């Protein structure tokens, strides 16, 4: 007797339909075989399925069982074939009816319950796009699939429960549909901007970076508050919009980064890989190409603390993703594309000892050491960072007594309000384009959307000679000025916007 159950397979972020064919033959030795390029984790499924069925109080058929995973020429990995295989066997035993257009997906535990499984979100997305009606997934992962109106998502707790459902004894209630906008969560951060005393310019730069999605580098002595500023950044970023939310959830679901019971992701990712992170860990790769930190930071923030301490090869690998917004990983067994549109936030010390230009501590580095230290980050990489700021060391005790400091203190919520407004303006502007933020503008967009008066042009020309701006920095300044103008809610870039943008030009790493 041959039963066909439908399931799905994730290759990178692509999903393919998989037919799980289960044949139970009355003749032959009682065996249990899985074919169709099953990897180790799929092969082990045999023992899980056998034990789970037995522990659910159903006798495991003592017959020759053959399972084929079609298409049979694509290697398969993962534990989520447990459920379709078990259902296939059980439907042969109990003669239950498998509803049409149904997908099964989930890992079994030995006691017959279903475990949280990675990739449920992608599978549900595939079900919606391929016109399926029902999906059966583990209850703990079902929330991920709840955002698709078109399909019925059945949260399954135990194997016996789904059997009761299929036999029509006791039906499982499909999970309630939830709008993406409805998954409301406030963007949270470790620190509030109001907790950071002083650093007015750095905070303003953060606001601009958050508004336009610009990359930013902070240079400052140890203890000046670079890390604190970066960690406060998530608090001023707007929530993900629906499209972004789905993109991010895809990556997090497939890597198993959504916790059990978790829903789709609305909060912008904030990733902080340590400087010992390998190249593969950062950009992705491996034998079976998996997404790296840059893809996990998609639509969010990639914070690289101690920027200069990262190996040069690792940093240079960021160049192409920074430009293209995605990374394509090619291995002998295929190529995978992962999105990687992130905002890079870097922090660095001004010199190896860290105290160059420090008001009270002396720097012990020689000129040559400083030059070598700064050379670790290449010009082309720095060129892709729009905002450069130096974060001064502050005397917090003195500042907390200064009344004028508190005058400028703003909570993250107030700043986020302005950021959200600026983002809305950008969204409207780029409605017909493929980009979302000012930082993504190419030269053609700049000509189209960055209007300014001759006076602004004069400032730019003057700055070009006074600060020796390169052609690329020239465009960077225009992009930053565009964002500043958006923050001021103005259509045209004013001279003051351009002059402020010049504050954030690069002046620390040779190129000025």
């Amino acid at each position, binding site marked *: 007797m041959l039963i066909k159950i439908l399931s799905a397979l994730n290759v990178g972020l692509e999903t393919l339909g998989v037919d799980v064919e289960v044949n139970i033959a009355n003749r032959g030795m009682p065996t249990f075989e899985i074919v169709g390029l099953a990897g180790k984790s799929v092969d082990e499924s045999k023992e899980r399925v056998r034990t789970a069925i037995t522990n659910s109080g159903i006798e495991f058929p003592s017959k020759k069982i053959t399972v084929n995973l079609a298409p049979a020429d694509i290697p398969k990995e993962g534990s989520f074939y447990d459920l379709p295989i078990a259902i296939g066997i059980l439907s042969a035993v109990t003669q239950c009816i498998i509803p049409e257009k149904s997908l099964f997906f989930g890992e079994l535990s030995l006691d017959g319950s279903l475990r949280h499984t990675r990739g449920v979100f992608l599978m549900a997305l595939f079900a919606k796009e391929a016109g399926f009606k029902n999906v059966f997934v583990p209850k703990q992962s079902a929330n991920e699939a709840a955002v698709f109106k078109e399909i019925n998502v059945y949260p399954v707790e135990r194997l016996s429960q789904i059997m009761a459902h299929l036999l029509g004894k006791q039906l499982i209630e499909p999970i309630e549909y939830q709008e993406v906008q409805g998954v409301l969560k406030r963007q949270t951060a470790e620190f509030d901007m109001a907790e950071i005393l002083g650093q*007015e310019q750095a905070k303003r730069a953060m606001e601009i970076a958050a508004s336009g999605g610009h990359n930013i580098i902070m240079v400052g002595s140890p203890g000046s508050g670079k890390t604190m500023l970066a960690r406060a950044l998530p608090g001023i970023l707007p929530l993900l919009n629906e499209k972004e939310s789905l993109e991010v959830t895809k990556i997090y679901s497939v890597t198993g980064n959504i916790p059990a019971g978790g829903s789709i992701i609305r909060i912008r990712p904030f990733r902080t890989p340590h400087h010992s992170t390998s190249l593969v860990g950062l950009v992705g790769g491996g034998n079976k190409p998996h997404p790296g930190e840059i893809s996990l930071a998609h639509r969010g923030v990639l914070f690289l603390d101690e920027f200069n301490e990262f190996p040069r090869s690792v940093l240079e690998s960021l160049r192409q993703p920074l430009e293209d917004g995605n990374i394509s990983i090619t291995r002998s067994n295929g190529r995978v594309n992962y999105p990687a549109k992130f905002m890079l936030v870097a922090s660095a010390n001004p010199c190896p000892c860290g105290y160059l230009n420090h008001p009270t501590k002396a720097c012990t580095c020689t000129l040559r050491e400083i030059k070598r230290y700064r050379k670790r980050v290449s010009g082309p990489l720095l060129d892709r960072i729009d905002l450069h700021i130096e974060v001064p060391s502050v005397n917090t005790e003195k500042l907390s007594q200064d009344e004028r400091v508190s005058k400028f203190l703003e909570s993250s919520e107030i700043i986020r309000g302005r950021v959200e407004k600026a983002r809305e303006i950008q969204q409207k502007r780029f409605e017909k384009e493929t980009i979302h933020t000012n930082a993504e503008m190419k030269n053609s967009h700049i000509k189209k959307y960055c209007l300014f008066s001759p006076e602004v042009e004069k400032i730019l020309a003057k700055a070009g000679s006074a600060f020796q701006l390169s052609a690329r920095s020239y465009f960077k300044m225009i992009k930053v000025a565009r964002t500043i103008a958006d923050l001021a809610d103005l259509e045209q870039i004013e001279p003051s916007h351009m002059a*402020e943008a010049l504050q954030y030009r690069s002046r620390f790493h040779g190129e000025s």
Partner: protein
Amino acid sequence: MEEGVVDIKNKKYPKALKEIKNPPKRLYYRGNWDEDIFENCLAVVGSRRMTSYGRRIAEKMVRDIASAGITIVSGFMYGIDATSHRASLDGGGRTIAVMPCGVNIVHPEYQGELYDDILKNKGLIISEFEKDFPPDIWTYPKRNRIVAGLSKSTFVVEAALKSGSLITAGFAKKYKRRIFALPGPTSSNVSEGTNRLIKDGASIVTCAQDILDFYDIKKSDSNNLNFQKAEGLEKKILEILKREPMEIDALSRMFEIPSSKIGTILSLMTMKGLIFQEGRKYIANY
């Protein structure tokens, strides 16, 4: 590029150098050997670990002095030496670098650009050592005697108590040349040497004219031109910055203006040349 060697018996040998006790027997050189260049020489020496104060003053004063036609002699080391060479080129003047090694070696090697610029601007690279002679610990003091010997006077910008700059000043004293010293804060260890020189009778330098007077040169006063270009708030900021260099955040607090606005003004002022930035701090260009 011209290069060669000048023997002590040669008529072209600089007179001032001949007067010292143990003049080098021959001088190797690169560049254009023109006797004029030795006419009015000023040695500018100072610490390798200059402070921002030392650098600012060296840049400003040396530029003015060099543009008045005085040749700046120094030792091509990084720090005050390199700053002085660069400032004299900026001022359109000529400069002589006395190397502690053969003239074909650029030492320190990363100052290749400065080396080339000195030659391009009718300057000279000289040394008593053969062309490919490597620098050694004993060659520096020997080099210093030439720096002092070539010059009518020596200007010490910043120096610690035990430093090569004070050795140069010692030579200048021995050769009965005038010593100028820049006074500095008593708390700075690179001003201890210069302050000691002043105590011992060196001439205090507070402006470029102090040195130009010694060479009998008058220079038109270009001060306070900046003020005419500064307007309103710019004027106030400029006055504050003249008193003390400040960071943008501090200025923002002082005037109670958001840093975005202050940043706008500071950018414009920088472009006008009213102020410049060093590290975090803005400094008035006086």
